């Protein structure tokens, strides 16, 4: 097992920079999720770990070894692809066995030379992987007759069987239906806990990131935005991108200017900023009056109250069963409020809103970086 370290890694395709000077340390044994929208560079980063993409600049380490120029097969990693990439002409058994047949492994411990596994050792490993992933009844079938979930488990077994230093997963759940996806998430977490191997997992689905990750690395436009536990990126997003990318519906971001006493004036009212709260020590110098800011409030942190400080008109009501979303127009901006259960508000109602100052995030209007 080993961690993976990016040191200023850049990937360019001609004039396009897919990944820009990425610094990221993936700790041995952690479940790291690379999260971001399409084209943010997360898959490219993963494929560089695999060795399927060359590195334009910087250093990539697996364990202590720089692997920039190491062949994919020599990196001691395995990968689960979005399409599973099973060999359609081979049985499940041969698919799982496949890496063992051609590669050499440190079977006799780290101090002995790598060697190929014997037939018996291979059979033993395949049986073990099949047992762990519930594939024993299907070993002699071809992938085409399996369901999506079974194919996915075959792909996992093939990745698992070589006991690699790290598992790489490229959106492995996106071809499954919603119910199976939820189950597989849990199974993946259990599998990770059991084997303890480093996992680098790429997805654009924040639910997968929040539910499975030890830490999340949020990427956008080829740049790393924030690394942290799911809780950290949700509670303290470093910029408006992360704030709005994580959470459904996304965080409300309102343009405003700093008013007196750490409040934020917006068209249609004002919000008490985090500085006004006792546990929000922010240098007042940063928060000069008149400074343009973006105030962020999560939909669940806004409450409708008679003494609210923001006044708006309900534009739409979405009832989702367990909760209900109110879309409120405030000045020329729109807010989403999450209300538990049902609501007696209807379109056209005028409401006043408030938020706990501790739940208000402040970002610089120009740089979009977090101020407080």
């Amino acid at each position, binding site marked *: 097992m080993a961690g993976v370290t990016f040191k200023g890694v850049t990937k360019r395709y001609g004039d396009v920079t897919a990944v820009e000077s990425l610094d990221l340390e993936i700790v041995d044994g952690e479940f790291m999720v690379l999260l971001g929208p399409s084209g943010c560079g997360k898959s490219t980063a993963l494929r560089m770990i695999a060795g399927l993409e060359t590195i334009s600049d910087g250093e990539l380490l697996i364990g202590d070894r720089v692997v920039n120029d190491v062949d*994919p097969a020599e990196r001691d990693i395995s990968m689960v692809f979005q399409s599973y990439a099973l060999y359609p002409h081979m049985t499940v058994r041969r698919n799982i066995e496949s890496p063992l047949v*051609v590669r050499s492994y440190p079977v006799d411990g780290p101090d002995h030379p790598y060697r190929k596994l014997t037939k018996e050792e291979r059979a033993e490993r395949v049986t073990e992987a099949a047992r762990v992933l519930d594939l024993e009844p299907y070993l002699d079938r071809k992938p*085409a007759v399996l369901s999506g979930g079974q194919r996915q488990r075959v792909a996992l077994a*093939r990745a698992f069987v070589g006991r690699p230093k790290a598992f790489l997963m490229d959106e492995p759940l996106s071809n499954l239906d919603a119910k199976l996806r939820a189950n597989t998430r849990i199974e993946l977490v259990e599998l990770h806990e059991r084997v303890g191997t480093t996992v680098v997992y790429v997805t654009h689905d924040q639910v997968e990131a929040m539910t499975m990750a030890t830490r999340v690395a949020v990427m956008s436009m080829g740049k790393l935005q924030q690394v942290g536990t799911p809780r950290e990126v949700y509670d303290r997003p470093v910029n408006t991108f992360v704030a709005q990318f994580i959470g459904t519906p996304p965080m409300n971001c309102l343009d405003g200017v700093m008013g007196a006493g750490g409040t934020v004036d917006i068209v249609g009212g004002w919000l008490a900023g985090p500085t006004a709260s006792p546990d929000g020590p922010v240098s007042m110098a940063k928060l000069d009056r008149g400074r343009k800011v973006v105030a962020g409030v999560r939909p669940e942190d806004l409450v409708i109250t008679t003494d609210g400080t923001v006044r708006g008109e309900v534009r739409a009501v979405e009832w989702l069963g367990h909760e209900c979303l109110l879309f409120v127009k405030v000045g020329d901006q729109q807010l989403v409020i999450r209300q538990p259960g049902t609501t007696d508000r209807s379109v056209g109602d005028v409401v006043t809103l408030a938020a706990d100052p501790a739940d208000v995030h402040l970002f610089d209007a120009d740089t979009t970086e977090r101020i407080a």
Partner: protein
Amino acid sequence: MKEVGLALTFLAPSLIIFSVFFYLPFIRLLDWGRYKSQRGGLSYRYVGLSQYREILTGPEFTDGLRHSVLFVLYTVPAGLVLGVLLAVAAHRPLKGIKIFQAIFSSTLASSVAVSSVLFLFLFNPAVGFFQVGWKEDPDMALFAAALPSIWQNLGLAFVIVLAGLQAVPEEVMEAARLDGYGPFRRLVRITLPLISPVLLFLVVVLVIFGFQAFAQIQIITNGGPAGASETLVFKISRQSQNYGAGAVLSIGLFAVTLVVTFLQFVLLERRVHYGDE
């Protein structure tokens, strides 16, 4: 009943075309085999099935068949292997690769006559590039006549294999790289099995083309020297006096092609992987 009528209605166009241009002439051909004709068919007399026995065991048929089989053995494996190798070589994202792809497939776009004449020039004893005298050598004449076919089969195999390769999922090849398959192993263990339906198609079609080849032989050797490169089709074309004999030879060729094709399916299809089974 209504469905049968509907089915027949939809089948009618092809049934009519096949009947007029294939089934009826074929039945007529079977019948002709029982007559000996002379003077280009101006007079003929009934000889019954004895003509079948006589011709199918005679040297015309056996020599012709031997040459046809040799022609197939010269043209099919060589064209197929070269086409596959070129396609594998040209199936990569390189700048300007389209130019090579166009060049390699160009042999397909040239007609048999053109490519044969090209090779005829190459063999020209005075100005040709290959002044080896193959055309005049009974042992090499058929091979010389096969060269344009190899050249053309290569283009056909290239185009079809390249299309097959492009249908192989990229992720499967990447998985194979990560699993440790080197370039040669990837080709043999992953790529070729995945394009096996395409390869089977090519083998079947190229073998049939080989049995049917005519123009290249006529242009390059004209069957010579002394009939050393007369394939079955060539022999059939020589039966302008006795149509009956020509009919029997044609039916012989048809039967051989049918059996060979059937055998290919039986022997090879087990090893062919189709995506959805």
